[in-house]
């Protein structure tokens, strides 16, 4: 399985993501710059990392979502290629319309940088099958606009279709997200967006490996 990481000006979690994917795959991912109009056919997983693309101008992820490379990501997503957006990457996927809803300013109005607990709400997705249903994992968050919002119909559809992959657990919701939503998948189940940073808990030196299962699931890698 081969991964690609999308690069846009202002992203700053790309190196962490590349390190995580390298650790899980054994080989470094391909990097794809924002002006590219296609993504190679041998790519099985596309990751949009976190950061502050275009300085969060207009709305977080709004400008990035309109760059040529995101059209290429959309084309791949429609063909069933797996796509993960983390933090700003999640905001970009929402602005692209690849996932439903929006991310608003944190309810506290403060940037939050801390560790939270996530409940694996649906362990059947392509991204969570290395975890068990209801498992609680640790994960860091670092964001200012992670307050997930969707209108009542969209929210009901997400819940009824089991599209909520992760929820903030045990009162650790850091941003006021509706229904404690931390990560969702699209209806087809091949696109995941989440605010927390699983790429930062990959090896023992990180203080834990709770995030590793997500990438192992997405890449079909069996844990050693």
């Amino acid at each position, binding site marked *: 399985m081969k991964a690609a990481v999308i690069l846009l000006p202002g992203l700053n979690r790309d190196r962490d993501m590349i390190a995580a994917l390298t650790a899980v795959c054994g080989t470094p991912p391909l990097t794809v710059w924002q002006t590219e109009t296609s993504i190679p056919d041998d790519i099985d997983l596309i990751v949009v990392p976190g950061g502050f693309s275009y300085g969060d101008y*207009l709305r977080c992820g*709004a400008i990035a979502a*309109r760059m040529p490379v995101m059209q290429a990501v959309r084309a791949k997503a429609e063909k069933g290629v797996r796509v993960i957006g983390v933090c700003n990457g999640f905001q970009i996927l929402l*602005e692209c319309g690849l996932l439903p*809803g*929006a991310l608003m*300013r944190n*309810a506290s109005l403060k940037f939050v940088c801390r560790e939270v607990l996530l409940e694996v709400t649906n362990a059947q997705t392509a991204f969570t099958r290395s975890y068990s249903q209801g498992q609680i994992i640790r994960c860091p968050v670092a964001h200012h606009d992670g307050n997930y*919002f969707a209108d009542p119909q969209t929210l009901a559809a997400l819940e009824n279709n089991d599209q909520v992959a992760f929820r903030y657990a045990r009162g650790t919701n850091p941003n006021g997200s509706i229904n404690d939503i931390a990560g969702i998948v699209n209806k087809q189940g091949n696109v995941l967006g989440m605010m927390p940073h699983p790429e930062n808990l990959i090896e023992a030196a990180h203080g834990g490996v709770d995030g590793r299962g997500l990438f192992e699931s997405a890449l079909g890698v069996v844990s050693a």
Partner: protein
Amino acid sequence: MIKARVTVTLKNGVLDPQGKAIGHALDGLGFSGVGLVRQGKVFDIELETSDRAAAEAELKAMSEKLLANTVIEDFSVEVI
């Protein structure tokens, strides 16, 4: 040339923590009787055309495509 103003506001029912904080701050400054405060955005845009109808259509398209996130925001277009 046409000058226009696009105003983007949060839809009713969408929580606006910034507007709320601004309302509290106004209260704190002694402005009494401040009700709901909602924060929005204003874009002043110049268009090189004299056709008002075409400009309005163009601005509407711009708003839907980029200026507003229609999941959470409404917009209005005003040719000045």
